[in-house]
């Protein structure tokens, strides 16, 4: 039984895997889905439970880490608002500093675990979970963010941009050595290609006198 929509959907899932893995096993994964769908002994719902579980297994490390940081940001925010509510006068810059720090650490630890891109991914998950701060804020302090759509969208965009910048900073610090090596390699490759294309151009290298020294 052919099910194009299921195959198309799973092709998207396959595309989300790291490129090297996809190149190596992507075709076989699709073939396996085909086998599963053709198997009369396996009910459809079981196939999709297995596939969802599979995605969870593949992503669990980064997602868990991102979720942990997201909940931490949410906790800082909730504690800050709750402190305000009981009449204390908490300093907002302390909460902001803590939240900013958590974003940097999310990018840093994610990138340390599995590279720059995954570090950003961990930060994005943290950001997505911490966005629950909006409904939490409405609940705790009565702020009605949705009353003014423009303000809501503005604050959301600024928060996303700030969070992303901090995460990128953390991930860059974690992979700085690697980035430095890549930039150096690219610069050397560019320089060599340029010198090869312009042999008469002045160079910083000492002239070859041909006396073997």
């Amino acid at each position, binding site marked *: 039984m052919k099910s194009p929509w299921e195959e198309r959907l799973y092709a998207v899932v396959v595309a989300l895997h790291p490129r090297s893995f996809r190149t190596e*096993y992507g075709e*076989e994964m699709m073939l396996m889905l085909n086998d599963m769908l053709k198997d009369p002994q396996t009910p459809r719902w079981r196939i999709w439970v297995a*596939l969802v579980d599979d*995605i969870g297994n*593949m992503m669990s490390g980064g997602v868990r880490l991102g979720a942990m940081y997201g909940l931490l940001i949410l906790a800082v925010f909730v504690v800050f608002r709750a402190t305000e509510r009981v009449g204390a006068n908490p300093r907002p810059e302390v909460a902001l500093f803590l939240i900013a720090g958590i974003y940097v650490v999310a990018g840093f630890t994610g990138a340390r675990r599995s590279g720059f891109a995954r570090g950003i991914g961990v930060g994005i998950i943290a950001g997505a979970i911490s966005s629950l701060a909006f409904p939490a804020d409405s609940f705790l302090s009565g702020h009605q963010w949705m009353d003014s759509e423009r303000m809501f969208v503005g604050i959301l965009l600024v928060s996303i941009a700030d969070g992303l910048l901090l995460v990128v900073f953390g991930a860059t610090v974690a992979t700085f050595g690697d980035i430095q090596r890549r930039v150096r390699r690219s610069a050397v490759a560019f320089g060599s290609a340029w010198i090869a294309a312009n042999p008469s151009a002045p160079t910083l290298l000492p002239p070859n006198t041909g006396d073997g020294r």
Partner: protein
Amino acid sequence: MVTPPLFYILLSLRGHERHGYEILKEVQSGSLGKIRLGPATLYTSLKKLLDTRLIQEVVGPKDGDPRRRYYRLTSSGRTQLAQELDRMERALAVGRPRAVRATS
């Protein structure tokens, strides 16, 4: 010591060379349905076993689908599997009489 999914993959390849879906089904039936692997988990596990040279890729049957890859145990894979089975047998020998005494 290998993880349960890796153990059942090794077990599924004992005496046979199989392709991915056959391994998946064997793991499921061998573990009495306790271990259900998805394609990504299966191929990640197969990659681990290939990297540690416990299994190897082989040419499939002539009449088979050329897109399928077949795998079989290497000699170190067979040794590893035998060691795992031996360890389990010893654990059973130690644990089963005690468990029986405790329940009687």
